[in-house]
């Protein structure tokens, strides 16, 4: 039931782009994206709903392929502050919970 994220880790130089993928075996109602820095709380980035509604973050975008139960998070022109672990949380209809992927560790170097 846990969604699968890829890659598990990525290292970039400042200004480069990254794509993080999240794939589920279940039909999804929504996908939520969070970023977590070490020892801190996950911070909400993006929610993608079945039907196409999207709420987001100014410099980060995402897509949601409902038929394939897949979502991708796009970080462009990465900044040092983007470093952290990114989690996708998936929701199925009727379940008031998120099931998180195993996380993708993103490191941005100067």
């Amino acid at each position, binding site marked *: 039931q846990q969604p699968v994220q890829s890659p598990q880790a990525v290292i970039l130089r400042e200004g480069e782009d990254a794509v993080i993928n999240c794939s589920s075996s279940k039909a999804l109602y*929504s996908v*939520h994206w969070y970023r977590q820095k070490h020892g801190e709380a*996950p911070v909400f980035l993006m929610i993608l709903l079945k039907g196409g509604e999207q*709420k987001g973050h100014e410099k980060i975008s995402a897509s949601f392929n409902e038929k394939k139960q897949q979502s991708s998070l796009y970080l462009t022109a990465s900044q040092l502050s983007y470093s952290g672990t990114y*989690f996708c949380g998936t929701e199925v209809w*009727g379940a*008031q919970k*998120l099931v*998180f992927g*195993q996380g993708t560790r993103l490191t941005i170097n100067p």
Partner: protein
Amino acid sequence: AAGVIQSPRHLIKEKRETATLKCYPIPRHDTVYWYQQGPGQDPQFLISFYEKMQSDKGSIPDRFSAQQFSDYHSELNMSSLELGDSALYFCASSPSARFRTDTQYFGPGTRLTVL
């Protein structure tokens, strides 16, 4: 803007002791979620409440119980603590979410250490 408040922030207990973690959601949020996160792991859903009623349950041990009170704050009670219970415990709140999950805002977490 007001955020989710959790207390205590750090807690150290001995094996077989009990612990109570508290969560105060963002004002006007009536849905609360509890997560457990071990080192290097993803947050694991424990339990959620909507309007003071349990709305979903995850991998929460029978030794744990939780409730949401009339002022919407929630408490997670943990008994017969084991070494494996050492983790970060997050509470998250969201606006009314009767049949689905809205944006969840996480609190700073309580770090529980069981010795």
